[in-house]
């Protein structure tokens, strides 16, 4: 039996598997927090079914002494809480995988019984007083691998159960200890001890997931209005802002539908608020008329679009990068827009923050394009730095003869808001004159189209360049956008080739002018995307004027895995 910790520099991957409602989330939350508090780098992400109870879900937790922030297929330790665990994860389980669980539950599924550490969670928990402590028993078993003693995590437990009664806390401590004892005393236990070193800096870092990074970025961007309609996986951002609404004076309203949500938010911008919507798939499809309205009114707008697999209802709780082209072309008629696609938590925070300022500046819709994988993944990262965050308010106090759509050199008309200044603010969805009144003057129409579209030139000047990771003198270029970056980056780093670099686009439209050169410099280019049609490759063809040699596509509703994608890339090099 191999000692996991022996493979030097390798992190440990722990997967929890069970039914919805069985408490995997508690194990995950408590365990990752204990890990971080003890100085381990940690990454976690989950895949789950669209149901509230039952089914089979799993969470991956990676533990390392180096930063770790990507999904992998490999499972070192599998904690199975439910029958069906092995079947559910069969493709990822190898002979090396150690399985922790109850013999009574998993006994039938595990072929090599040697690999099964039998810990009767529920029996131990029942002895303490109730089966509900099973989860904490499991956590106790898990910490034992880290050579972390129960005493060292009492503070964590106290913090975690701070809203519960003293009795509950004590029972949980008891459960943790019992799980720990059971594990360390198991015969084949020592083989799975983890030797990753604890790093002091990690303790000061924050542990946030994608939706929290977007939500914190929104607050930093001055967001004070969110109107949305629940839809997985985008709801998390609505919930985050609602939870913080009292502290930050945010009006968080659940609209009757997505059409109302976006129209309400555009109204809010008109009156000077900084508004956003958060939505997914079909909800966004319903907002597309509103996107066009923002285009015509020249209203700022921030749209968080968390992608999931379509068409139609598709796979509501899974991941995909399938709505890029929809975001790019949504809305009838022609008008400019910006699409950010953050792939790291840091980028999610700063780009969301920036989205509000830039939407306000150019008076256009700005998208934050994420996906279920990104929203539901978290890792420790430096606390977001607020030093450079400011709320740039681009509206003006109007004077008497204010004209909302004044024709200016650069196409940007100073934006007034009603009740602030002595002018009148007239916003019109028809083609309009400079004052905002409906017009059928077709020469003016041309001027107004030009005015709206020429803002794109300015916007391009401020585009964020793609980020090159790896050697500057590359032969092969692996291109990705949005949520896949950490996965691709880990995969390509692990290949360790001096001729291969990664190009990461966090702004996917409009593209920075450097894109063409950077891509053409490579003799082989591979675009990796989480969709079936290769949408970003098409976008690059039109907007960066490049042809791509290869596509790696994935569309089963799961994200890429850094270990298996590395194999695929290797084959193409």
């Amino acid at each position, binding site marked *: 039996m191999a000692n996991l910790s022996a493979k030097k520099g390798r992190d440990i991957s722990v997967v929890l598997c069970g039914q919805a409602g069985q408490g995997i989330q508690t194990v995950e939350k408590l365990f990752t927090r204990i890990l971080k508090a003890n100085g381990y780098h940690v990454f976690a992400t989950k895949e789950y079914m669209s149901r509230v109870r039952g089914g089979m879900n799993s969470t991956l937790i990676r533990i390392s002494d180096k930063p770790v922030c990507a999904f992998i297929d490999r499972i070192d330790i599998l904690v199975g809480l439910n029958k069906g665990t092995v079947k559910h994860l069969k493709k990822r389980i190898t002979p090396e995988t150690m399985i922790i669980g109850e013999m009574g539950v998993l006994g039938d599924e595990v072929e090599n019984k040697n690999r099964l550490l039998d810990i009767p969670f529920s029996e131990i928990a029942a002895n303490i007083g109730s089966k509900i402590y099973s989860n904490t028993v499991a956590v106790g078993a898990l910490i034992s691998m880290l050579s972390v003693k129960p005493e060292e995590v009492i503070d964590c437990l106290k913090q975690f159960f701070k809203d519960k009664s003293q009795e509950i806390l004590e029972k949980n401590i008891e459960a943790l200890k019992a799980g720990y004892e059971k594990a360390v005393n198991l015969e084949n236990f020592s083989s799975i001890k983890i030797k990753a070193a604890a790093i002091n800096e990690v303790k000061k870092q924050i542990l*946030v997931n994608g939706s929290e990074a977007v939500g914190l970025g929104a607050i930093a961007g001055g967001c004070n209005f969110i109107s949305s309609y629940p839809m997985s996986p985008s709801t998390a951002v609505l919930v985050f802002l609602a939870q913080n*609404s009292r502290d930050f004076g945010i009006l968080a309203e659940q609209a009757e539908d997505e059409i109302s949500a976006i129209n309400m938010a555009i109204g809010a911008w008109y009156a000077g608020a900084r508004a956003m919507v958060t939505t997914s798939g079909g909800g966004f499809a319903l907002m597309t008329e509103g996107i066009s309205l923002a285009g015509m009114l020249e209203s700022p707008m921030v749209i968080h679009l968390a992608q999931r697999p379509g068409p139609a209802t598709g796979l509501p709780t899974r991941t995909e990068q399938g709505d890029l082209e929809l975001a790019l072309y949504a809305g009838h008629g022609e008008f400019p827009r910006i699409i950010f696609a953050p792939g790291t938590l840091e980028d999610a925070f700063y780009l969301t923050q920036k989205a509000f300022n830039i939407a306000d500046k150019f008076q256009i819709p700005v998208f934050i394009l994420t996906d279920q994988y990104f929203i539901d993944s978290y890792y420790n990262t430096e606390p977001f730095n607020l030093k450079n965050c400011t709320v740039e308010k681009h509206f003006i106090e109007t004077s008497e003869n204010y004209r909302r759509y004044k024709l200016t050199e650069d196409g940007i008309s100073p934006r007034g808001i009603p009740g602030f200044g002595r002018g009148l603010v007239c916003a019109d969805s028809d083609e309009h004159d400079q004052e905002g009144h409906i017009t059928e003057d077709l020469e003016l129409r041309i001027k107004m189209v030009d005015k709206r579209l020429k803002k794109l030139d300015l916007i391009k000047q401020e585009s964020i360049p793609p980020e090159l990771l790896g050697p500057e003198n590359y032969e092969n270029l692996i291109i990705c956008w949005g949520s896949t970056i950490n996965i691709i980056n880990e995969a390509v780093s692990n290949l360790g080739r001096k001729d291969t670099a990664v190009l990461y686009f966090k702004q996917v439209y409009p593209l920075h002018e450097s894109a063409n050169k950077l891509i053409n410099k490579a003799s082989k280019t591979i675009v990796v995307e989480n969709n079936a049609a290769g949408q970003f490759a098409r976008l690059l063809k039109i907007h960066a004027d490049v042809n791509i040699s290869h596509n790696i596509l994935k569309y089963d509703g799961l994200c890429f895995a850094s270990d298996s994608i590395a194999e695929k890339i290797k084959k193409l090099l």
Partner: protein
Amino acid sequence: MKSEKFDMGDIDIAWCPGCGNFGILNVLKKTLDELKIDPGNLVLVSGIGQAAKIPHYLKTNFFNGLHGRALPPATGIKASNPSLTVIAESGDGDMYGEGGNHFIHTIRRNPDITNIVHNNMVYGLTKGQASPTSQRGFVTPVQVAGVILEPFNPLAVAIALNAGFVARTFIGDMDKTIEIFKKAINYKGYALVDVLQPCVTFNKINTYQWFRDNTYYLEDSYDSHDRNTAFKRATEPDKLPLGIFYINPDKTPFEENTGVYQQNDTPLFNREVDYGKLESLISKYALV
């Protein structure tokens, strides 16, 4: 009926001569004038249709949005700056057809806005198809055998949704309409005024004369505080009563309920982010 403050002078108005919309425009200007509302503090929100062109014909801030979508931006505007007077005004097709879902849920939400609906029982701008309020049998280029759907009764629905202020007027009677507009605007909360308005071009059935013959005022003794009576009167099978059907004085407007203005009545545009608080929120994520 002159109203200097809101007058646009000599402008080209796109309505047909004789259209009931002119009356509504005049009544609106007069009302606003008499209420001493400052045009700079007023926002008129409309959708698309003949009625929805009204903001272009008086001096005011306006948000002329999408067909059917006047109420959501009106709500967003009012909630972002409660010191503005917000009126959402559009046609019957716009408010009750395309915008039907917002009609329902805005009533539930109860922002302090006035909702004026130009009810000509037809789609004017798109040339004469049936609207939700078109009467049974009304023949149009699309409803070739006449309307077969039950006409939408906006008052009954609003009362069923427990709207706080529900009224109907006929633009043939301007004075009474002004009176009711004033009360609606002064009402703290969502107020519906359904204004019967002849479309002289596409509705040859529901003419000025027809409305005169088929409407009457609720009695002076009518008690507008009883929801059941209001429902009964709103669903009378024959003539259409005019007046204020229902008032509920005990409702709190949405924006007051949201909590955003409880400690701080600054409108949203004038607020700053509390970066100190944000910093401590972020640092909480460093803890367990």
